[in-house]
């Protein structure tokens, strides 16, 4: 029987690293549904969860999988599901319920090429905007994107910590290549892994208001069965959790659940900058394309071109401040992503015309090569 945290050096796939990251973060409930290329996460959780006292269930579809992790989160567990494009579409309904009811949980999307059934076994990065706006209504979400198996492990822990801290579903936008690639993963000692748990209520149970926020905009969250007699609804609600069908209640609730994310952008957003200090061109990328871009950057530097890389570890909220600051001094951005321009539009929005914005994109099914990126760098650099 293995412990929850497999401290040591491993050779594993990104999908396995994600599952191990979840276990290390304290995830003890997984509701899933098989789908390529995310199935291995569910398979690994099915094997590992019962031996660490957790529970795995394969639900009847992704709608149910997402509903089950919300229910288990209110039972007090740290919970996760994993899927790919078609399943991600089905999960949108209850991702919205998770946002509205402020339920911490982690949703992993190992992206494949779409639309529809698309290229099930072949990677893409086409769900970036779906992660942002896929459920109805106006909301803020947190989404991360790993560039390696190690980062898939690390980010899964980060995703749990952010979801617990801000009481919001956190999405990990991996891709088929990162999910299926095997590489070195170092798992630290359990005591060296920083874990965050949801804020807990204090004081009298009869005076408790389930959506009364603390200073950071996040309300303490009890478990079902603790005697707080909470009411949780996807209807617009007040601090007591009671449905209130007014314009004012809608404004108050939506403003709070968006501001708890936007007001804490500095705490949430993580980027990695390489050689941007003197750069004329900055590549903006993430996931597998972030690695492609790093290789292209080094090749361009070797040829004497001043190229840097801003790698987005956090996709949402978008790293607006970083792009705005760079736009003041660089000549051009080149966004590298396996879609036909999604985060590219965000870069353009934040550059506000102060720097040229280019795209190296691809509709999906294969990676973008460093040569593709280098060719574009040369064109832009002229």
């Amino acid at each position, binding site marked *: 029987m293995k412990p929850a945290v497999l401290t040591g050096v491993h050779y594993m796939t990104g999908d396995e690293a994600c599952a191990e990251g979840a276990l290390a973060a304290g995830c003890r*409930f997984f509701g899933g549904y098989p789908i390529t290329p995310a199935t291995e996460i569910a398979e690994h959780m099915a094997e590992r969860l019962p031996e660490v006292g957790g529970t795995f269930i394969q639900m009847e579809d992704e709608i149910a999988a997402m509903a*089950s992790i919300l229910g288990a989160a209110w039972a007090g567990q740290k919970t996760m599901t994993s899927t790919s494009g078609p399943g991600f579409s089905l999960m949108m309904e209850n991702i*919205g319920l998770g946002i509205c009811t402020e339920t911490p949980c982690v949703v992993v999307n190992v992206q494949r090429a779409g639309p529809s059934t698309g290229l099930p076994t072949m990677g893409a990065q086409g769900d970036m905007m779906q992660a942002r706006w896929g459920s109805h209504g106006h909301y803020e979400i947190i989404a991360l994107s790993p560039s390696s198996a190690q980062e898939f492990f690390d980010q899964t822990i980060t995703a749990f910590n952010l979801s617990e801290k801000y009481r919001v579903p956190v999405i990990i936008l991996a891709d088929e290549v990162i999910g299926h690639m095997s590489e070195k993963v170092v798992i630290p000692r359990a005591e060296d892994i920083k874990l965050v748990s949801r804020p807990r209520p204090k004081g009298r149970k009869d005076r408790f208001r389930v959506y009364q926020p603390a200073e950071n905009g996040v309300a303490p969250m009890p478990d079902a069965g603790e005697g707080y007699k909470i009411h949780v609804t996807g209807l617009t609600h007040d601090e007591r959790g009671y449905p209130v069908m007014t314009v004012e209640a809608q404004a108050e609730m939506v403003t709070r659940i968006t501001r708890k994310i936007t007001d804490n952008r500095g705490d949430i957003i993580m980027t990695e900058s390489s050689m941007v200090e003197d750069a004329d061109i900055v590549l903006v990328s993430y996931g597998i394309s972030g690695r492609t871009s790093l290789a292209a950057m080094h090749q361009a530097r070797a040829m004497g071109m001043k190229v840097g890389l801003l790698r987005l570890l956090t996709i949402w909220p978008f790293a607006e401040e970083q792009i705005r600051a760079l736009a003041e001094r660089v000549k051009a951005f080149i966004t590298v992503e396996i879609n036909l321009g999604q985060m590219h539009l965000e870069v353009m929005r934040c550059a506000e015309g102060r720097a040229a914005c280019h795209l190296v994109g691809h509709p999906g099914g294969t990676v973008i090569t460093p040569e593709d990126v280098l060719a574009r760098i040369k064109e832009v650099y002229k």
Partner: protein
Amino acid sequence: MTATASTTPVLKHPLDDLIRTDRIPHIWCTGCGTGTVFSACLNAMKSSGIDLQKTCMVSGIGCSGRAAGYVNLDSFHTTHGRAIPFATGLKLGNPELNVIVFSGDGDLFAIGGNHFIHAARRNIDMTVICVNNLTYGMTGGQVAATTPYKAKTTTTPMGNPETPFNLPLLAWASGATFVARWTMLHIRELMDCIQTAILKSGFSFIEVLAPCPTNYGRRNKEKGLESLKLYQDRTIIRNNADPADLDIDFQKGVVLGEFVNRERPTCIESYDRTCRPKG
């Protein structure tokens, strides 16, 4: 007798402690049967002796889906059709919780039908109470998976061309360990039945017929009181009846009673036995 504090009449309903009284008045129409089923459920929860602090009610969307908003316990009003998978996570996340799903026929058997059969198959230890008013009441009376053949609704203005589900048969075939049907008029039987279902380990299902005079009855020349007359005159109590004989046809007579009460390992028992490491 002198007027003292102890003799001052207290206008308190015996179920007040289980109701969020600050949310009353409720949304249910005059003549609606949901409130009666709701109070039968609360009475049964009380009389069953279960730990109410460890008891949760989960609802979907619709008129009866609002029940979760009125019960003064941990309560979850989820998305349309998804009460059962949410409740599945709640139960598996903390097996000590008693989980009661209270929702309507449209929610549980059209949009949520797939979840129902799978929760029954898995034998998740929960009690599902379906208020069957034969229609989508909340949205104004559209055809449901339970609407009788030829009945008029706003989306079947010429009459329903489809055949409705036999819900107890579906529950039995899917593996439910307790299956019953009552009407909201059979209040004593219903309370006893809900108590039995709550105390029963495994997936328990109770269908409760209830009138929707506002959005079903008035289009089918059936006043609220006439629905109750049908419940009284055109029903037959036949425990252990063959589930195949349970179609709802008031011309022939509708069979009520407890039809299934069998033993099967629950999802959690089976998971612990099959998947957990030994020793």
